[in-house]
């Protein structure tokens, strides 16, 4: 029964395939779980220019430019990335396209690897863009292709909204061939692409008309489909929530929405007619539910289903049926949180900070794991770029305190604490630079540490402006973080190798005693990218069991029989533990 035209694809792989089949020629993205693998896959197909842009706003503008030049283009990002890209997003709705433009937002209900659970279906409503919500990989591919068609037909960018469960689940996909789409070419039209108020007014009128037409389309499109079942019991669902609902209620009638915005009012009214019980099953926010209720239709939804976390079979069953699934979990087990890898250069830096009485604003990346014990090094994590700027605000507030408070009410010395910000190299290029310029301009005193591990680590090692390589695998100019920091106006820029803990202590003490703003570039490549060195070993004769080396938080190290122990299977030979050992017991 083998069929060579079928493949098991994740949602991300399917979107890449769909873009390629649709004749897409330009793709831009900033990495972000769970969207990263879309471009990582798309770059393997022929005939598509792919790039890691420096951030999501940049990426969307690149894709919009390509669309205005008349080729099909796609832009992908995680949900919070769309916040960064919100400015061009709203404008792009007015401007429209020439070649189709699909914007993929990968939401993360359940916060598997994100800082919030925002529901980006609302962006369609707010920015006035159609939103497609696939429920499996086949639909992810089909809806990507549909997105390009709708985009061109209605002259608007189209949002494809997936979630982690779509992005990272593999389901069977039928493969098709690439179609060649004609390049429309660029033509100057300032009434369309130039949003001076005088032109934007006209574009807004047109946008409202397009949304009306798209609402008609939503009422009739096959992606919004009714599946007949019991006459008086209906379920309305979108995305992966549909799959859970369908399994729990195999006999119900279903309205499966593949296009949630514009809202298919007439279709919903038609479906609701004569249904005694109507459930709306959707993840996170009551997006559909609120719209359906606004039609005066009574439904059961978020009064029973949670507003937090992703859904699953058990949550849907227990909320909406009389036969709950019950079980007990082994709740007392030691947790296994993610940790910095053996040899991670961030660990060396955190060791340096551990005993310092400073406020440390963090950013987003692997180094955010330095918030956990034993590092305990990071106070805050807000959003990408939020380290330098938060530090600046804290500092300025301290200056405004009355002398009695002097910065820190708990601190008997009444001396304002020094504020240090930590930011990764990819994050620095993404959104750190404006914050650093701001700190210089507004006479900040902070110490900014750029933890430059030569890659975008957290999302799986993507290149960025500091690596000298593009997503297409070409060599390019390598921007050095230290040079950029200087160009931002920072006069005191220091370099250190985080593995050399002893040297760094003295240097760090000196920097703390000076005035800022100062930048420390802590440069050492991610341990997963360099060949392993000879494994270290503890000499139990010499080890006195002081545990100093354990405060590195290295997963290769443990304490056994009152001595430090190094697991040879995990050790990468970075030597930080040996650096720290006062008894030279690590060889």
């Amino acid at each position, binding site marked *: 029964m083998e069929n060579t035209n079928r493949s098991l694809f994740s949602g991300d792989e399917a979107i890449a395939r769909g873009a390629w089949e649709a004749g897409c020629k330009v793709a831009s993205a900033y990495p972000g779980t769970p969207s990263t693998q879309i471009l990582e896959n798309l770059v393997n197909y022929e005939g598509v220019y792919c790039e890691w842009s420096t951030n999501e706003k940049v990426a969307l503008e690149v894709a919009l430019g390509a669309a205005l030049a008349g080729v099909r283009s796609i832009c992908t990002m995680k949900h919070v990335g769309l916040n960064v890209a919100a400015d061009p997003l709203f404008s792009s709705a007015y401007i429209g396209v020439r070649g189709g433009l699909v914007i993929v937002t990968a939401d993360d209900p359940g916060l598997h690897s994100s800082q919030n659970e925002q529901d980006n279906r609302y962006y369609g409503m707010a920015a006035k863009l159609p939103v497609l919500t696939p429920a499996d990989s086949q639909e992810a591919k089909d809806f990507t292709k549909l997105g390009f068609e709708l985009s061109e037909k209605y002259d608007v960018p189209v949002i494809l909204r997936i979630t982690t469960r779509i992005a990272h689940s593999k*389901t069977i996909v039928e493969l098709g061939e690439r179609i060649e789409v004609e390049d429309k070419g660029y033509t100057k039209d300032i009434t369309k692409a130039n949003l001076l108020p005088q032109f934007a007014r006209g574009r807004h009128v047109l946008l409202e008309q397009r949304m009306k037409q798209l609402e008609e389309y939503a009422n009739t499109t096959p992606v919004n489909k009714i599946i007949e079942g019991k006459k008086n019991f209906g379920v309305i669902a979108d995305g992966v929530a549909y799959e859970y609902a369908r399994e729990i209620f195999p006999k119900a009638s279903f309205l499966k929405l593949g296009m949630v915005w514009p809202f298919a009012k007439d279709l919903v009214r038609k479906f609701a007619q004569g249904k005694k019980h109507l459930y709306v099953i959707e993840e996170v926010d009551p997006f559909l539910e609120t719209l359906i209720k606004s039609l005066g239709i009574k439904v059961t939804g978020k009064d029973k289903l949670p507003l937090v976390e992703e859904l699953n079979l058990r949550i849907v069953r227990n909320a909406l049926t009389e036969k709950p699934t019950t079980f007990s979990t082994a709740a007392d087990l030691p947790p296994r949180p993610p940790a910095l890898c053996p040899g991670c250069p961030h660990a060396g830096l955190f060791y340096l900070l551990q005993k310092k009485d400073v406020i440390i604003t963090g950013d987003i990346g692997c180094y955010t794991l330095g918030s956990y014990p034993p590092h305990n090094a990071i106070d805050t994590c807000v959003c990408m770029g939020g380290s330098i700027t938060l530090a600046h605000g804290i500092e300025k507030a301290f200056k405004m305190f009355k002398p009695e408070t002097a910065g820190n009410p708990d601190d008997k010395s009444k001396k304002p604490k020094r504020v240090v910000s930590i930011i990764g190299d990819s994050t620095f290029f993404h959104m750190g630079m404006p914050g650093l310029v701001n700190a210089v301009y507004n006479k900040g005193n902070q110490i900014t540490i750029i933890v430059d591990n030569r890659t975008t680590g957290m999302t799986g090692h993507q290149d960025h402006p500091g690596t000298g390589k593009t997503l297409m695998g070409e060599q390019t100019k390598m921007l050095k973080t230290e040079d950029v920091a200087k160009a931002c106006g920072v006069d005191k820029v220091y370099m250190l190798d985080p593995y050399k803990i002893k040297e760094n202590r003295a240097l760090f003490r000196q920097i703390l005693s000076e005035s800022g703003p100062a930048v420390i570039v802590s440069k050492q490549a991610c341990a997963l990218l360099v060949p392993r060195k000879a494994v270290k070993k503890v000499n139990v004769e010499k080890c006195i069991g002081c545990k100093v080396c354990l405060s590195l938080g290295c997963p290769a190290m443990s304490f056994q029989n009152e001595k430090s122990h190094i697991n040879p299977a995990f050790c990468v030979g970075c030597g930080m533990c040996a650096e720290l050992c006062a008894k030279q017991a690590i060889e």
Partner: protein
Amino acid sequence: MKPKITNIVCCGVGGQGVLLFTDILAQVAMSAGLDVKKSEVHGMAQRGGSVISQLRFGEKIYSPLIEETTADFIVGFEKLETLRYLHFLSQKGKVLLDSLEIAPMPVLTGALTYPSDIMERIQAQTNNVYVVDAFKLALELGEARAQNVIMLGALSRFLRFPYENYEQAIKENIKPKFVDLNLKAFKLGKKLIKK
């Protein structure tokens, strides 16, 4: 009658090859003409964290996730992780586990201790427990990363797919350089289960 769906939960620690295990098996099920869904989360969990991958196959699959108490198999690459996800097991389900212990960070730092009664707790819940030393065997083979394929060989004894499907799926999912070693690992794993 409900159409038969097979639910398999595979769990372990980031880096153990849990995802590759379900990738290969998913391929095997697909080439047998079945509908297949598998689900897992990449990202934070990879950094030495706890990893769970869920695989379902049958005539038609809707949910990519398995409901608690309905897994036909729990395949655990590590003891503590096996117990952590044991609530997925169905009443008649089987547990296949490697007795390997990997201490999580809170245990390494000495804040918590690694539980000593894991096997007892698993056995208190089910009689269908099969313990294999896949990791040890993988080390003997000279490739720690072959643990997952040894486990796959062991699990294959309970499933009804032909050997050729496994061979094909291993070839498609593993670098050519390591295929022979992994086919050997698979056969080794098969021998671990006596039915």
